[in-house]
């Protein structure tokens, strides 16, 4: 490569030998896949019905009958965990998809057109940024009642400004690049350039960021259920399970609380590892 601007020396000094742990990435993907499969095939995998009460197994320790033990009502923890994966993963999925779609559209328009549209949207986003997503979810519950529906919709709206802001920034940068001007000079229309050429260039980066959002949403929705505002007991949801299990902790019965807690952490770690690896890989593809 012959480029007189960055000297070879500088390039050499700035190059970092980064070999992200491929192993970690694969493990993360496997873990997430397992959880997803468990959620989808729950009725076929779970040994017990998640709501099946069994007073003879109250706070049972792990055993061949109950691999992860049982909770205060004798319900099998493993089965509840498997069924719990459904709400744990579905909610964030919906939020991420909705917020990404909405955010990309708004960000593309704002970044491409600029002007008053951009300024107005920026102002609206400024206001939305002042509301932490968990707060908006709580507000939604206060207005529309407990459950997952209101929070999911509210969080989709709460996260779109983040996606939009990133998209807008990337689009605005691309727009200033000569290749976009080159397309214009060649005779392509603005809309064509924006949608068919600029958007595909920025979408991967935005998508990678959205993957990271999945982890945040997962934690927040679980937290909401933990507070008793999201998924309601006796439904099996990891956050709700921890909520119910709080009572037993004072008595030394940790397992019904720790198991779902660990599951949340593992899920979030897995998503974060995947998201960061994707961001790195995509970041490395930007032009020299």
């Amino acid at each position: 490569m012959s480029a007189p601007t960055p000297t070879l020396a500088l390039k050499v000094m700035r190059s970092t030998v980064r070999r992200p742990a491929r192993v970690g990435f694969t493990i993360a993907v496997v873990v997430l896949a397992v959880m997803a499969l468990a959620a989808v095939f729950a009725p076929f995998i779970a040994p017990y019905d998640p709501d099946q009460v069994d007073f003879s197994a109250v706070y049972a320790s792990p055993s061949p009958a109950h691999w992860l033990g049982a909770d205060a009502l004798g319900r099998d923890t493993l089965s509840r965990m498997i069924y719990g994966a459904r709400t744990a993963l579905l909610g964030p999925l919906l939020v991420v998809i909705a917020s990404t779609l909405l955010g990309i559209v708004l960000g593309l328009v704002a970044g491409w057109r600029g002007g008053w549209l951009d300024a107005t949207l920026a102002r609206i986003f400024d206001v939305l940024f002042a509301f932490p997503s968990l707060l908006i979810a709580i507000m939604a519950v206060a207005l529309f009642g407990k459950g997952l529906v209101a929070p999911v919709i509210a969080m989709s709206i709460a996260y779109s400004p983040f996606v939009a802001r990133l998209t807008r920034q990337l689009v605005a940068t691309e727009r200033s690049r000569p290749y976009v001007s080159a397309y214009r000079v060649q005779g392509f229309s603005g809309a064509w350039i924006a949608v068919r050429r600029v958007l595909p260039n920025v979408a991967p980066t935005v998508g990678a960021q959205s993957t990271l959002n999945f982890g945040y949403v997962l934690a927040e929705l679980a937290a909401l259920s933990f507070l008793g505002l999201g998924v309601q007991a006796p439904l099996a949801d990891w956050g709700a399970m921890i909520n119910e299990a709080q009572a037993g902790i004072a008595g030394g019965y940790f397992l019904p609380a720790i198991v779902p807690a660990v599951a949340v952490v593992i899920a979030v770690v897995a998503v974060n590892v995947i998201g960061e690896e994707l961001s790195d890989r995509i970041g490395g593809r930007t032009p020299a």
Partner: protein
Amino acid sequence: MARGRAAARQVAGKLGSLLLTLFLASLLVFFSRFLVPGDPVSFLLRGRKPSPEAVAQVTSEFGLDLPPWQQYLNWIVGMLHGDFGRSLQYRQSVATVIGDRLPVTLGLVVMAGLMITVVGLIAGTVAALNHGRIADRATLTFLTVLGAIPSFVGSIVLISVFAVQLGWFPAFGSGTGLPDTVYHLVLPSIALAIVFVVLIGKVTRMSMVEQLGREHVEVATSRGLGRATVVRRHVFRNAIGPILTVSGMLVAGLLVATSIVESAFGIAGIGSLLVQSVDRLDFPVVQAIVLLVVTAFIVVNAVVDLLGPIVDPRAAAGEAGR
């Protein structure tokens, strides 16, 4: 001369912007109630006996017989006078209820904030200065795992291990008197801080790594300055901007997360009040707390924004930073 005038204009502009955002946010908070279909009285009195006195009280207090914009104005004017309405569950003024609980939450947030800053900055700096080597990757892994521990998980684990099992710290309440309170708040503030340490740690690392690659660092080294001096004066000093910005954005998140931690630890603070009020359908309190959190965020970020020109002189000239 011109510099002073331009700076004053900048400050005025930012204050104006802050007020506008506050205004719009307050609109959002106030009018969210109108999104709920149906009769406002029944919404406000959900779960309570709709006796004629209750109806009358709610109607007069919220001005439900007035046009919406006037209701909004009354609300704003009332707040500026310190009147945030009356709590439906406590039959006290909202201001009193919140006022009683605010100190504990603030204490919690301050303690957590200290931990976040110290641990985050140190971790980020260590990682940045050892970029690409073992210390960096280890710190990153540590941060990634930490970042996956939401406050409710952290609370449960800390209570299980350090309160119940080991008995080193209390699991419940906020204690009496300053030293006892601090003792009670140790575990909760750790639980609160964990997830945010990552954010500060990562932005510190990223910002410092970027500065380390800049040519002025190389130039300073070539002039004969020691490594520590160069890092202090050219790397860290330049890296502060983004760290400050991220810190500002954390504040609201911290406040909201107190709802989780306070609920888990049975602490009577603003956070647990929020959850409780939602649960008990006490809308005036919910509204007031939401506005409080949002105002805190907007003000803190405006302050960080105003500090911009001090951190980066180019911002003072109106040019984009970096």
